[in-house]
């Protein structure tokens, strides 16, 4: 089966999406370093744990509609 190129964040963000938490992920997008209600909390948590280059994203239930799309 052809492997998809996509970086699939749907599963890893799901537990955090209803509260719209900020989430720090590792470079493979498979491990959560930390989460919090503000980006500053998450940055601090990463710093405290010596993590230098986290990927930080705000988890949402719906990313459609950033550019015009169906709602």
């Amino acid at each position: 089966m052809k492997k998809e190129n996509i970086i699939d964040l749907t599963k890893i963000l799901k537990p955090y999406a209803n509260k719209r938490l900020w989430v720090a992920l590792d470079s493979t997008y498979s491990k959560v370093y930390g989460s919090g209600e503000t980006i500053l909390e998450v940055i601090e948590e990463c710093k405290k744990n010596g993590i230098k280059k986290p990927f930080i994203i705000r988890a949402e239930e719906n990313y459609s509609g950033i550019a015009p799309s169906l709602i």
Partner: protein
Amino acid sequence: MKFRYHRLPSKVSKYVDVPIIPIGLKFGLYPCLVDSGSDYSFLHGRIGEALGLNVEDGEEVEIMGITGNKMTAYFHKIHFTIGGWEYNENFGFSYKLGTDLGIWGRDILFNKYKVIFDQKKKIVELKDYTDA
């Protein structure tokens, strides 16, 4: 440089696949949507604060989205990386952005690189203009 699309949750169709190129900021990597329709590049005001900026001290500009809604953005020159390459450019910071994702507009990304979308392979590629 090639960047894979990101698959994100959607209420419309379970998920949406979007061209994202992470921007390297001092706290780590942050997802920015590649938006050829945007004149300028934007980050949410919250990201400006995380970078230590006094967001509203920047150059104030009124901008208008495709829906005609106006919002205020404050432009600041920031240091960032794209795929490890370092740059200093102006980003608009606004508290009224409809998303927490950053936006790569034509001002930075498209001026620096040939931007090639491969929607079938779900890849966005940045090429030097000097490349054949």
